[in-house]
Structures are given as structure tokens and as C-alpha cells.
């Protein structure tokens, strides 16, 4: 455990970012957690005040501050709505690292991040094993969604309805690819991300089908690592940097125009958080991060903007689809039109918009595990908005949102399919 003065010194380095908060409180209008609890320490203004208080020794309890700072979905709604442009997300990620450095990382997280996540081969093997046994503890509960529940695991998982690990993850079926540019003249590196690889390989296959259809060459290197956001969100910068470097190594070898991912969170992590957190890494790594981040694109944005799609009119009797805007697409990257363009490429679909389509679904990665109740309260509102449209399908460009929304719909016994826009387009090809 580092000394208190080191903690104060590191927090002091955040001061220039913290001081920009003028305490106007506008973040209260958009914070999903504050919307549930009404507690000031749950909203960005409160968290920033606490970090300033700690840095200036007006607050004495780092653990108390850490508990508040981690009650956050990292959805970025506050930053997107901040009148004075405070980069709240950067601040909270850095603060989690600083506070975890002082307080220490929990043994469970050490085992997960340092023992497993940072070793992609081992991680793949272990989850491969788990996928074979998970059926013993769970039973299917909703055919349309494909979810399961588990009485045995209830003490750990609560009432959650799960999307199980896929029998065959994407990396097993398609270990690597290196194809030439076709009609499009473009080559895309493909980063499926953990969830599209292990839980929703159908999304990965859909992306590959669409890219093939449009004559886009694909570079898919083996042994891709996690984007690092789970480790960073837990304050484990060491594991985060290790994962960043592992990915820089596997993608560094390729030659491509863009790097696409079907996961909103991975996209915003690679594109925005890697460069924001690069300070402190070697100049060479910083250079490599910048080079890669410049090429990163959400797969919907790539397909819609770079391949010149013109959606047809929906045909008679088209299935109604509603769209959820993932925070890490719309609020972080300003992408909301492109997923809609992509799914309108399927003439069998028509869009019915839901109320507050860009309201957070409440997943927030490990937030949903640590704060299951708040997460579910936020998720239920999303479920109600989806049901309100009467749509048969909800589409969203983020597998993490897909997990949460599947859980919420399944718990209510709703027969609404949850799909990625790329899946919907691929079905028409």
C-alpha cells in the first residue's frame, strides 16, 4: 500500500481536470444512477467534489470515496451533457486507478485480471471448459431470447437470466483470417471483443458475412486480448496496460485501412480511452496507440459511412424493430444514425423508435454484478420502453447492452428477440 502522500500527489495531478467542474449540477438530469437514488455522491458533481475534497485533505477516508467513485456505470452521460466540458469519464477511470493503487486490488479481481484475463490463451481455455459444464447448473427459460436461469447459482447471480457461453466461440471456428481487399478496395482489421467472441459468436459471423458481401478484405489475427476496460474500471492499470500491449502486438503485424469492432464499449475503449490513458506508457507504445486508435471504427459506422449503403423501402409486413443506443456509441462517439441505416438494409425490417432510446440500459460491465439492484432498476425502465413500442426485435450495437437487455426482457417473460444491427443486415444477404 503506497503512502498517503503519494495518493495526495497523484490526486493532485488530476486537479486541473477536477477544477473545471463549476458545480452547476446539470449532470443530475442525465445520470441513470442518480435518477434511481437521488443521492449527490452518485452523480458526477458529487464524485468530483469528493475527489477534490480528498486531494485537499478535507475528506479523510479514501475507501469511502472509492466506494462512491465505483458506483458509476461509466456511461458518460454526464460528460456528454456537461456545460463546462469536464471529462468526467477520464477523471473517474484515472481516479479508480489511483485509489486502487492506494487501497489495493481485491484478491478476486487480482485472480481474474492478472491470473486470467491478461493471458488470452488461458482465458479462452478456461471459458471453453466452463461452456461445457454450464448446462449442468442452468436451464433454458426463453427460446426467443435464448436465455437461461439458474437456481443453483442464485446466491451468486441473484434473479439474473443469463446468456450462456457459446458452445463454439468465434475464435474456434475462425481462428484467423487474412483476406485481400475485394470490390470495396478496403481492408478491415476485425476485433470481435470478448462478448462477440464467447457469448454472441453469431454477431461475429454476421460481421464477417457483411464484410465478405461488400468485398472488404479482413485481417483477423489470433490470440486477441480483451480491450482492457474491465481491468481499468477496477483500477488495475497494470493489467490494462498489459492487455493494450498484447493487442498492439497482434494488430501491429497487419496492414489495414480501418479496425472495426461490433462492440460499442470496445470501440470507445480503443478509440478514446486507450489514448487518454496512454500517458505513462512508453513513447513507442503511445505512438502505436495513436496509430491504431485513428483507425478504429464502430462496425456500423464503417459499413454505413464507408461502403455507401442505400437502404431500400421496407416491404409489406416487415417486422418491427426498435433500436437501443448504447452509451458508448452515442454519448462517447456520437454514432446513432449508422446502426439504423445498417438494419434498414434488411427490407424485412421497419424501425419503431422507443422512448429515450439513448437512456442507459444499466449494465455498466461489472457494475451489474456489484450493484445488481440499481442495475436492474435502470434496466427495467429500458425494458418498459422496449415493450412500449410493441416491436418484435430490439437491436443494439453493443453485446454488453445485449446481455443486460436480454436479462431484463427474459425476467419479464417478454418474447422480444435481441439482436445486433449487423445480424439483422446479414440475415438479408
Amino acid at each position, binding site marked *: 500500500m503506497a503512502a498517503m502522500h503519494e495518493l495526495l500527489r497523484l490526486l493532485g495531478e488530476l486537479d*486541473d481536470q477536477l477544477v473545471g467542474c463549476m*458545480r452547476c*449540477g446539470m449532470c443530475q438530469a442525465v445520470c441513470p444512477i442518480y435518477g434511481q437514488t437521488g443521492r449527490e*455522491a452518485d452523480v458526477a458533481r458529487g464524485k468530483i467534489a469528493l475527489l477534490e475534497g480528498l486531494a485537499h485533505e478535507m475528506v479523510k477516508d479514501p475507501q*469511502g470515496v472509492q466506494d*462512491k467513485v465505483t458506483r458509476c456505470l461509466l456511461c458518460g452521460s454526464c460528460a456528454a451533457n456537461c456545460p*463546462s466540458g469536464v471529462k468526467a469519464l477520464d477523471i473517474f477511470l484515472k481516479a479508480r486507478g489511483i485509489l486502487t493503487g492506494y487501497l489495493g486490488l481485491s484478491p478476486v479481481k487480482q485472480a481474474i485480471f492478472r491470473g486470467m484475463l491478461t493471458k488470452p490463451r488461458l482465458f479462452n481455455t478456461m471459458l471453453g471448459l466452463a461452456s461445457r459444464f454450464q448446462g449442468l447448473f442452468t436451464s433454458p427459460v426463453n427460446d426467443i431470447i435464448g436465455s437461461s436461469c439458474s437456481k443453483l447459482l442464485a446466491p451468486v447471480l441473484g434473479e439474473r437470466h443469463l446468456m450462456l457461453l457459446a458452445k463454439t466461440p468465434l475464435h474456434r471456428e475462425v481462428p484467423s483470417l487474412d483476406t485481400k481487399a475485394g470490390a470495396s478496395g478496403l481492408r478491415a482489421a476485425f476485433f470481435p471483443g470478448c462478448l462477440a467472441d464467447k457469448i454472441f459468436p453469431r454477431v461475429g459471423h454476421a460481421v464477417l458475412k457483411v464484410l465478405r458481401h461488400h468485398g472488404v478484405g479482413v485481417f483477423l489475427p489470433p490470440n486477441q486480448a480483451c480491450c482492457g476496460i474491465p481491468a481499468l474500471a477496477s483500477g488495475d492499470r497494470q493489467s490494462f496496460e498489459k492487455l493494450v500491449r498484447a493487442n498492439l502486438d497482434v494488430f501491429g503485424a497487419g496492414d489495414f485501412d480501418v479496425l472495426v469492432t461490433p462492440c460499442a464499449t470496445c470501440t470507445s475503449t480503443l478509440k478514446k480511452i486507450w489514448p487518454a490513458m496512454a500517458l505513462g506508457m512508453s513513447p513507442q507504445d503511445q505512438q502505436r496507440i495513436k496509430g491504431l486508435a485513428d483507425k478504429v471504427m464502430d462496425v456500423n459506422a464503417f459499413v454505413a459511412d464507408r461502403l455507401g449503403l442505400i437502404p431500400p423501402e421496407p416491404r409489406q409486413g416487415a417486422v418491427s424493430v426498435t433500436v437501443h443506443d448504447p452509451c458508448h456509441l452515442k454519448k462517447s462517439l456520437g454514432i446513432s444514425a449508422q446502426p439504423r441505416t445498417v438494419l434498414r438494409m434488411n427490407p424485412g425490417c421497419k424501425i419503431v423508435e422507443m422512448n429515450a432510446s439513448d437512456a442507459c440500459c444499466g449494465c455498466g460491465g461489472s457494475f451489474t454484478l456489484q450493484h445488481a439492484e440499481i442495475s436492474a432498476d435502470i434496466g427495467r425502465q429500458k425494458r418498459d420502453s422496449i415493450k412500449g413500442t410493441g416491436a418484435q426485435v430490439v437491436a443494439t450495437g453493443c453485446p454488453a447492452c445485449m446481455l443486460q437487455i436480454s436479462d431484463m426482457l427474459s425476467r419479464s417473460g417478454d418474447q422480444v428477440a435481441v439482436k445486433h444491427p449487423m445480424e439483422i443486415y446479414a440475415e438479408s444477404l
Partner: protein
Amino acid sequence: MNDALLKEFQALVGKDNVMEGEADRFSYSYDAAVLEPVVPGLVVRPASREILGRVVKLCNDNGLPLTVRGSGTNLSGGTIPSQGGVVVLTNALNRILEINEADLYAVVEPGVITARFAAEVAARGLFYPPDPGSQAVSTLGGNVAENAGGLRGLKYGVTKDYVMGVDFFDVDGEIVKSGSRTVKCVTGLNLAGLMVGSEGTLGVFEKLILKLTPPPLAAKAMMAIFDDVAKASETVAAIIAAKIVPATLEFMDNFTIRSVEDFAHAGLPVDAKALLLIEVDGHPGQVADEAEKVEAICRQLGATRIQVAKDAEERNKVWEARRAALSALARMSPTTVLEDATVPRSRIPAMMQALEGIAGKYRLTIGTFGHAGDGNLHPTILTDRRNLEEWRRVEDAIDEIFEVALALGGTLSGEHGIGLAKSKYLEKETSRATILYSRRLKKALDPKGILNPGKIIGE
């Protein structure tokens, strides 16, 4: 806070609604005013009005200072608590109890969010005009306690013009009723009037009766560009003198224009010395007529260019530029001090000149924008509160801004309240007798001095 008392609060409002940890308490030590934080001893969040009343009594029985807080967007320190006092949150009391379309009023709990209420009212085809800048998060209770204003003050008035009644708790937790649901009411002392702008020092709101109106049928917005601040301010006076009262009549100086353009790329003329953003509303015929007259006045008084919004999209653009003003200025420096000294509108040219002098004298950057039509300008000082030498100059400049405003026959605060920030100046505008009268009033109503002590009239 001793254990027995803590348990009593927990028993009263429920354990989940009491916050006693350091981190939670610290997060209620500030509001939007640039002042030092003061950490309360306890924070409670009553889930019903009845419990709110019992909390007030419990505080009074134990002589605990009590500060009511809605969303903490106050710009004068009115929601900064007392050391060791109790912060009472109203944000769980957020029900709209009644919207009466036949009699044009609504009854609400104090924690209802202003914008939510306005939207709910609009959905019934009615209109609640007060629109303070913080309306997306501010509470109606806070608006009444501060007598909040907004962009529409010129034609539609401010919060006080929409308060028909306030039911509130006295320090013993008994309900005091005031006002009524009728247009006319002269029953009893005007206690509702006493509550408006009282900043939580005289009672704790239980529910509010608010006036509604039919919305205007049409609106037209325009932007007039000037190469001289004096010409812009003379135009403001001329519009009013022509017996036209626009719904909104906003001003931006050159520094603000350039900041907004840098930030929002709204297509503003960066070389203009001043802009007026004007909207007239009402019956379509009247709107067309008034818009034409306003345009003619602007031209006569030397506007170099006038852009009239042709449709809703263009109208929206005009107001987006205005809404971006504070954000654009706030991004220029770490600390933003937003003042609201107000002068009779005929004195705006003099006020503008004085502000320019003050910025030069104290070597500060001041961007000025605001509600020119009602004389309520917002000189906004861009600074860094960590730079102590500069901060002293900021404080001196603020003193001088107030002196000038008062010398011009103006007032210390148009809409942000006195709170802690301006209470030391109050006697300058009023008189010793005024302060003593107010203090005697407070002493009679709140003998132990528990209700938001120190605000407005000092301790």
C-alpha cells in the same frame, strides 16, 4: 451527531434515507456558488410530506440547524448548510398532485423538477412560463425559495408571479396554509408572498399552488447585430418605449459572441460588438405586427444586420447560441463567477460601460450576456480560484459591480438570491432598519434560529 439522535432520525425517515458517512455528508457541503464548502452533520431524505414535517420538529426540538435542499443549483450559497447541521432533501417529494385545466393552476410537492413540470403542463396544452437556466434539474421548491427568474421574465414575470399559495411547516412541524386556488384571494396575511424568496429561512415548504396560463399561439425570433454596445442598449430601451414587450430580449457582448462561436460554431458574427436576440410571441397577427416594428426599430437605431428566423429550425438556432453562452464561457477558465446584479433597463448602457471599466481596472476577463430586456445582465468573470492573488482582484471587482449597480438605482440580485454570497452587501441596498426588522421577524418565527441560519440577513 450523537447516537441516540441519529437513531431517532433513522426511525423517523428510515435507515436508507439517512446519510451519516463522511463521503455522503461531504457531497452536500456545496452548491453552485463559488464558496467554501461546509460539511453538515447529517443528511436526511424524507419520503413523504408528513415525515418532512416531523423532521423539522425533531431538528427544532434539538436545536439543530436545518437547510432544505432540492437540487443544489443555487448560485448564492443558499443551500450550503451549517457546520454539523442537518440537510433535508426534497427530491423524494416529487409528485405533481394536481393539474387543474379548468381553473388554470397546479398543486405540486416541493421536489418536482421544473422542466418536468413544464413539460407535463405543456402536454395538457397549458404553459408554466418561469424558465431558470437550471430548469432541467432545479426543483420548484427551490425556484420559489429563491424566486428564480429566467429568459422570459420581461414579458411573463418570474416565479413569484406564478405562486398562488404555499403550505409550509413552521419550526414546530405544524402546517401553515397560505393563498388559495382562486385567482383572487385576500384572506389573511400574504404569507405566500413572505415565503417566496425567503431562501428556507422562515419555513419549510410542504406544497405549492402554481398559476398556469394558456401558451402563446405563435412566436418569432430574430438576431440583431451591432457595431456598438451603446446602440444595442439604446435599442432595448426603444423597443420597450414603443410599447412592445418581447417574450425574450437577450444581450451578448463581443467576448461572449466570440466564445460561443469558438465553442458552438453557430455562425455568429465574431466582429460584432453586441448582439440582441429577440423573440416576440402571442397571437399570430400580433406577432407579425410586432416583429415588423421591432425590426424597424433595430434598423433605425443602427443595427448593421438583422436576421429573422424563417422557421422553427432557424428559431432554434438563435436560442441555441444563447443557451451555449454560459457553457462557452465556462470552458475558457477553471472558475466561472456568474453575477446577476440588475439595473433599471434604461441604465444598461451605463452598466455596460462600468463593467468594461471594472474589467480593465482589475485586469480580469469579464464576458457579459443576459436578460437585457429586464436589466438583468450576467457579467461572468473568468478566473482560477486557485490563483489567490487574482481571486482577491475578483472579489474587489465583485464589490465594485455591486456598488455601480446600486448607484444606478439597481439591485444586488435579479434572480440568484442573496444567500451567503451577498448578505454582507444587503444593508448597502436597504438600510440598517431593514436588516433589524427582518431579523426580528425571523427571531419571532424561528426562536432557536434553526432555519437555514446565516442566509440573507446574516446571523
